[in-house]
């Protein structure tokens, strides 16, 4: 499998504090990867760098077949290139209906003029209906998304990510605030998604990671501490030390 994203030698510091320190990371197309690490390990900053929110002081981030450098691109360009991100806290547009939220996320031309003269075709409507079905919100399609429960919002956000049809999906703590049954469903969706695209899941919950059954990267103090299967990394002395304290 060819490499989809390659992060190499990336460092970033905020007022002297090194949030990311010479981090290197690779993910192939159609790979599912879990990233774990204690608080302050740099997980969120790592995602910020890939999605263009934070510009690193040094290093390279190369993406896709054409080896694009993501460092020179704006957030929206990166998203258009096929990098989707789900935030820790569900951020859906609460003032708008589930339908509008999904329609906005649907993979279409993003320019202002194209959007201004956009008219949803019947395929688009069907696609939205299909997604709503998949995330269990068919009945709530015309409700304001602000009226949804927390779990439903998480679903809606995952639905919006799928609507974007990204090649690389970055998911920040997807299971937070979910019931066990909902977690099960989330695992299924992520594994299903990983069949057609690369998925990076940042998670605290070991049980959830175990259920994903994939390669794990452990971050600590801004760099990769260990990488491999979950069983492999949990046997690593350093990882145990970091997680259990010294």
């Amino acid at each position, binding site marked *: 499998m060819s490499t989809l994203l390659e992060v190499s030698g990336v460092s970033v510091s905020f007022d002297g504090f090194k949030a990311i320190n010479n981090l290197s990371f690779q993910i192939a197309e159609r790979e599912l990867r879990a990233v774990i690490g204690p608080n302050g390990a740099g997980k969120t900053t790592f995602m910020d760098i890939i999605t263009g929110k934070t510009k690193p002081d040094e290093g390279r981030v190369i993406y896709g077949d054409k080896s694009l450098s993501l460092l020179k691109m704006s957030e929206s360009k990166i998203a258009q290139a096929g990098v989707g991100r789900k935030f820790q806290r569900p*951020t859906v*547009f609460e003032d708008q209906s589930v339908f509008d939220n999904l329609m906005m996320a649907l993979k279409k031309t993003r320019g202002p003029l194209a959007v201004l003269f956009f*008219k*949803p075709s019947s395929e688009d409507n069907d696609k939205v209906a299909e997604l709503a079905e998949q995330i269990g919100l068919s009945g709530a399609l015309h409700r304001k998304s602000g009226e949804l*429960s*927390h779990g439903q919002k998480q679903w809606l956000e995952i639905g919006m990510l799928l609507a974007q049809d990204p090649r690389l999906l970055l998911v920040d703590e997807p299971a937070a605030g979910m019931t066990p049954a909902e977690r099960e469903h989330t695992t299924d969706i992520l594994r299903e998604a990983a069949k057609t695209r690369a998925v990076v899941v940042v998670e605290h919950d070991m049980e959830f990671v175990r259920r994903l059954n994939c390669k794990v990267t452990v971050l600590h103090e801004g760099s990769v501490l260990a990488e491999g299967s979950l069983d492999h990394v949990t046997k690593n002395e350093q990882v145990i030390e970091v997680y259990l304290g010294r």
Partner: protein
Amino acid sequence: MSDVAIGQRRQPFALRFPSVMIFLAILALFTVGVTILSEGFGIGVISTSFIKTLGKTLCLCLVALAMDLVWGYCGILSLGHMAFFGLGGYAIGMWLMYARTEIIVLESLAAAELPPTPEEVSNGIATQIFGVVGSSEFPPIWAFAHSLPLQFAAVVIVPGLLALVFGWLAFRSRVTGVYLSILTQAMTLALSLHLFQNDSGLRGNNGLSGLQNLPGLDDVPQATVSLWFFWASALALGLGYVLCAWIVSGKFGSVIRAIRDDEARVRFLGYPVEAFKLVIFTLTAVIAGIAGALYYPQAGIINPAEIAPIASIYLAVWVAIGGRGRLYGAVIGAAFVSLVSTWFTGGQAPDINLGFYTISWVDWWTVLLGLSFVCVTLYAPKGIGGLIDLITDRKSPNRHGASLGPDQGSLREQEAEK
């Protein structure tokens, strides 16, 4: 079942948005009614000066609409839209003043022994217009003042271009929120200070005057002219309303409201947020320019004080009092506040005698306005438009006792307070 739900959205535009039809119907009725009651074409109940007031109010409604689009829908609290409004007024005022002065100068030169040369005409006009600032030459910006079509183009292009350049600079460096407001205010201040200078080429603090007289139409009474402008303003407002409603109803409206609520998230959806903001900012600046071009011929005079930052603040006040985030709210706010303001400051409101002090509304109206604005912000963020929610029974959703969830979404907070 989802097919049914989606099917609802395929209705014609007008049916999907009954408020647009209601608005247009009311506007049409109002226009016809005023025409019947006018001096120019009707029974003469409404004075010409009040027709002008009403026509000006319609223009203010139009610029309020633009403000609502940029602020209420896109979340950019611009304190520069009255500057665009004024620029539109200046653009049309230049032609009005030039063309009228040209007629006067030609008349006076016609009596001379020799037919005038173009230079003599041009010098004559320049002396007439700029004598007041001690100059007798046309500044370069008046190069197109002789041409109505070109100045019409300037009504659109000048505010549009300024908004485009300013917006591009501001948005690309990610200036948002209050910073952006202050920056737009600074732009407005700079523009008005510039126009206050005598060598700005626009007659300094004298401004442009005599705009109520249409060149070549001196025989037409003001009663008629005022109605023409009234109709043009009503038409512009109607078209502007439909345009705005069309913009906010589609996916574009969805995106700009999303930008208002969470700009970063929209970016991660792949939308070029800056481009969207720029489109809205420029478009609304153009609408404001057109509104100004209709307003100032009815007002008769424009000067830099009209562009001062306070004017744009009042614009925000109107939209907030009317209810932002809904188009009719902006119109109601602008109409209500500006008419009430005319009533109070015109000395028509009865003074209140407290025995030891007499409250004269000419002096105290601004205080009342300021304080009521504070109250609206604090207690009625929906403005007057909120009253319409009460009538149409738009309630908060019935959650059937389900939990609000752990997050702090803005809508949730509002609901929890109820």
